[in-house]
C-alpha cells in the first residue's frame, strides 16, 4: 500500500514537472503576450494541481493535507486574477494582439 501511494505520488510529481516545463517552452514559442499568457496558464492549473496532488499523497491524512488544500485554493483564486490584470493592461497600453485572419468566418 505504502509503495503504491509512493508510486502514484511520483507519477503525479513527474507529470507535473513535465507540464511545467511545457508551459515554459510555450512561453518562448508563442508569438505575443496574449498567446504567451495562455501558455503560462498551463503552469497555473495542471502543473500546480498535479504537484499539489503528489504532495498531498505524500502528506497522508494530517493537518499538512489541509494546509496544501488551502494553498491550492489561494492559487486558484489569485492566478486568474493576475492573468486578467496582465491581459487588461496589455490591451490598454501594450501592442495590438496578433490575430489569425487566414479564414474569414461567416
Amino acid at each position, binding site marked *: 500500500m505504502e509503495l503504491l501511494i509512493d508510486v502514484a505520488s511520483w507519477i503525479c510529481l513527474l507529470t507535473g514537472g513535465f507540464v511545467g516545463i511545457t508551459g515554459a517552452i510555450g512561453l518562448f514559442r508563442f508569438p505575443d503576450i*496574449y498567446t504567451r*499568457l495562455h501558455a503560462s*496558464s498551463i503552469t497555473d492549473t495542471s502543473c500546480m494541481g498535479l504537484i499539489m496532488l503528489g504532495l498531498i499523497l505524500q502528506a497522508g491524512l494530517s493537518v499538512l493535507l*489541509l494546509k496544501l488544500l488551502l494553498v491550492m485554493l489561494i492559487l486558484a483564486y489569485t492566478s486568474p486574477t493576475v492573468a*486578467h490584470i496582465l*491581459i487588461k493592461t496589455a*490591451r490598454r497600453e501594450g501592442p495590438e494582439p496578433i490575430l*489569425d485572419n487566414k479564414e474569414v468566418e461567416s
Partner: protein
Amino acid sequence: MKVVINFGIILTGFWLINSGYFKPLLLGFGFLSVVIVIAITWRMKEKDGEFFPLIMMSLRLPGYLLWMIGQIIKSNMDVIRRIWLGSKSISPTIVTCKAGQKSDAGKVLYANSITMTPGTITMSIHDDILEVHALTRQAAKDLQLGEMDRRVTVLEDV
C-alpha cells in the same frame, strides 16, 4: 447575523489549519483574532455594503467545481498539444460573449472560470458583455455555445 456566524466558522477553520496546535493559550489567541477580524469587517460593511462576497453559497457549487476540473483537464491537454506542435497550430481570436448572470458575484465567477480554463482569457467586462481572447478558433467557438454560462447562471438560483 447568519453571515457573521458563517464567517466566524470559516475564520476559525483557517486559524486551526494554519496553527495545528490545540493548547488553550494558542486557541485563546485564535479566538481573539477571529473576533477582531469580524469587528473590522463589520466596520467595512458600513463603507461598501457587501459583507462577505467571496463565496457564492449554493448547493450546486460542488457539482460545478467537478465539471470545471474536467473542463480544465480537457483544455490543458489541448494547449499542451499545441505548444509542442508550435505556433503554426494556433489561431488567436478575440470574441465577445454575453454573461447571463444577474449578480456581480455570478459575473465574476463566470469571468474567472473563463480565465481559469487554459486557452481562453477574459480581457474586459462592460455590463454583461465579456471580451475574451482565445488561443484557438475552436476554443472560442466552444465558449460561444454558452454551456459554462448556463451552468454559472444556474448557481445563482439556489
